[in-house]
């Protein structure tokens, strides 16, 4: 890293910093050289940190009033909504906050896909990100069970039952997960415990995610390696801080709109009916952010293979740095990849849509085609594209774009004459 040696000015600061270099860390964070051409798609990292903190803080307050018991959970949520001071506000922020968190994380992930941020030397950042994303899905699912409404109960039943697809030990695992022979009070209490634990695991991983980011530094829209610090970079503070802050405020306006004016629109009405093991809802659907994977699950006729397909759809992302064989990071210089990128975006949106529809007729057919295409994109199109695609010339630096750039990043970098 290009950190210059830092010495605190005050005597006490020096004394303290010699023993615990917190001031060096703070100095590193403020001075951290950041590419100056980062666009607004890059502000979602900061927004996601805000989302995580918001969920943890509101969640703590909710946990003070919530009762994790099958007979009392639903009542305690209504108690929060009615009798706890500003309980309605805290709960609506937490419930909509989950959706906002996923909205931001999807933008963050697709930004990475577009600009090739997952490529060397940032594979570890990317893989930590995938683990965070998996934990987010777990936390969101567990949290959705806690109000103990109809969708909570039946969603929990459907998802935990997926484990029964595992040969031989499946049934045993499901009983073990439930703590009994059906989703019941033991299930609820352990879900609550895990829901409380996971955000702190995520927090730890976020620290690693940022640490891993600060080793190579940020990727940027041009996708080239830059010298740090140089004319191409700005210090994180104040430039990036104020820009992230501005974007965060815009995001908060959208967030506030949901919380204050349509707080229940992203939830399902059935979850205001108390859980009833004897009545199955007409359609059991997960929250919107899990729909694409739900569509993949249902598009495979075999239960075990469906579960495998769904898990693979997520885990395949972890192999992305090696599946994408192109040396060029940014889609800006990859005309063909750019088109396939947008097809993938459309494909995922289609999967999300059919995931919300009943799995029959045309919907099922569309879900199958879209699922097949999803895997085709990662397993065939990306590797082949890397070898075949004619990329555009890339610039050598951000400040001096297109100076006899070569389509091959490695050769361009190696030409001493072009690198001052």
């Amino acid at each position, binding site marked *: 890293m290009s950190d210059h040696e830092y010495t605190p000015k005050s005597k006490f600061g020096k004394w303290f910093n010699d023993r615990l270099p917190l001031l060096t860390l703070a100095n590193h964070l403020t001075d951290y050289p950041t590419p100056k051409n980062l666009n607004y798609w890059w502000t979602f990292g900061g927004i996601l940190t805000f989302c995580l903190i918001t969920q943890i803080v509101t969640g703590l307050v909710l946990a003070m009033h919530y009762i994790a018991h099958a007979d009392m959970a639903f009542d305690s949520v*209504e108690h929060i909504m009615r009798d706890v001071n500003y309980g309605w*506000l805290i709960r609506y922020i937490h419930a909509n906050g989950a959706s906002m968190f996923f*909205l931001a994380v999807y933008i963050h992930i697709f930004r990475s896909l577009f600009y090739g941020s997952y490529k060397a030397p940032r594979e570890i950042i990317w893989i930590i990100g995938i683990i965070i994303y998996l934990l987010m899905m777990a936390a969101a699912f567990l949290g959705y069970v806690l109000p103990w409404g109809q969708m909570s109960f039946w969603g929990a039943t459907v998802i935990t039952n997926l484990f029964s697809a595992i040969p031989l030990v499946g049934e045993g695992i499901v009983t073990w997960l439930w703590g009994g022979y059906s989703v019941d009070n033991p299930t609820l209490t352990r879900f609550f415990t895990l829901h409380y634990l996971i955000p702190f695991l995520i927090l730890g991983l976020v620290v690693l995610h940022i640490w891993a980011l600060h080793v190579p530094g940020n990727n940027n829209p041009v996708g080239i390696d830059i010298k740090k610090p140089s004319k191409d970079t*700005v210090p994180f503070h104040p430039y990036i801080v104020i*820009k992230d802050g501005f974007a965060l405020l815009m995001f*908060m306006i959208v967030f506030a709109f949901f919380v204050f004016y*349509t707080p229940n629109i992203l939830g399902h009405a059935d979850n205001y009916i108390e859980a009833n093991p004897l009545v199955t809802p007409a359609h059991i659907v997960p929250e919107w952010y899990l729909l694409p994977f739900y569509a993949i699950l249902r598009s495979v006729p075999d239960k075990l293979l469906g579960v495998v397909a769904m898990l693979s759809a997520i885990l395949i992302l972890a192999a992305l740095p090696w599946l994408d064989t192109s040396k060029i990071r940014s889609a800006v210089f990859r005309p063909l990849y750019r088109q396939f990128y947008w097809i993938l975006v459309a494909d995922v949106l289609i999967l999300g849509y059919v995931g919300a529809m009943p799995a029959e007729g045309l919907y099922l057919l569309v879900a199958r085609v879209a699922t097949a295409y999803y895997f085709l994109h990662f397993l065939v199109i990306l590797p082949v594209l890397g070898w075949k695609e004619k990329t555009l010339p890339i610039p050598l630096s951000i400040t001096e774009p297109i100076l006899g750039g070569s389509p091959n990043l490695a050769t361009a970098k190696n030409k001493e004459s072009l690198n001052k």
Partner: protein
Amino acid sequence: MKNFFKIFSFIILFSGLSLSTQAAEKVEYLKTDWSFKGPFGKFDRAALQRGYQVYTEVCSSCHSMKYLSYRNLAEKGGPEFSIEQAKAIAASFEVKDGPNSDGDMFTRPGRLSDKFVMPYDNVQAAQAANGGAYPPDMSVLVKARGGGVDYIYSLLQGYEDPPAGVTLDDGVYYNKYMYGNKIKMANQLSDGLVEYSDGTTASVEQMSKDVTTFLMWSAEPHLESRHQMGFKAIVYLIILTILVYFSMKRIWSRIETEV
């Protein structure tokens, strides 16, 4: 900045989509003007009080409202009965209490702190009295139904003779807004069924609207303060965003890069 608007419109589009997919699932419900809709929406106090009257005189013989207390009737943002009125309402109900020092249960007149008295002791008793169907608790009913207030409002007015070819069992009625059109609740409302003390004509439409308004309040008792706080919060955020935007422009003007 151009890029920024792209992102922002993307988020708006997402929000719009989520709103419209909800709308797409709806059957054509009867329309009426709800005073509580929109960012400045407030409850119509008189409608809430009339709605409470319809609930007690008609619905409450079968439907419980277990999350409401009599004190709620006098609280801000609700029907806003005076404390005396609410006390009188509470006292008009017999509440089971106890055990006393002799170990016996006893009944006493209701107090403000009591929950709304339930029509049946338990779900089984309710089912036994209603041909096997459980009249759902109405505290959060409008939030527990896809169409919300429009659905409840329509359902109350949706009773019809079944079309030719549809046969109904005993105790099952035809309602064009009910899922599957078959409902175990008979038509409850008829013109002039209740006598409103404020002189409003108690038409079926009027009663449906009043009681649905009351149910919206019971499901969202803090709706008014939510709307008011939302307006303040969003105005505050917009002003702050504008200030931060100009600070950002100023800071970034030190280097020759567009933000």
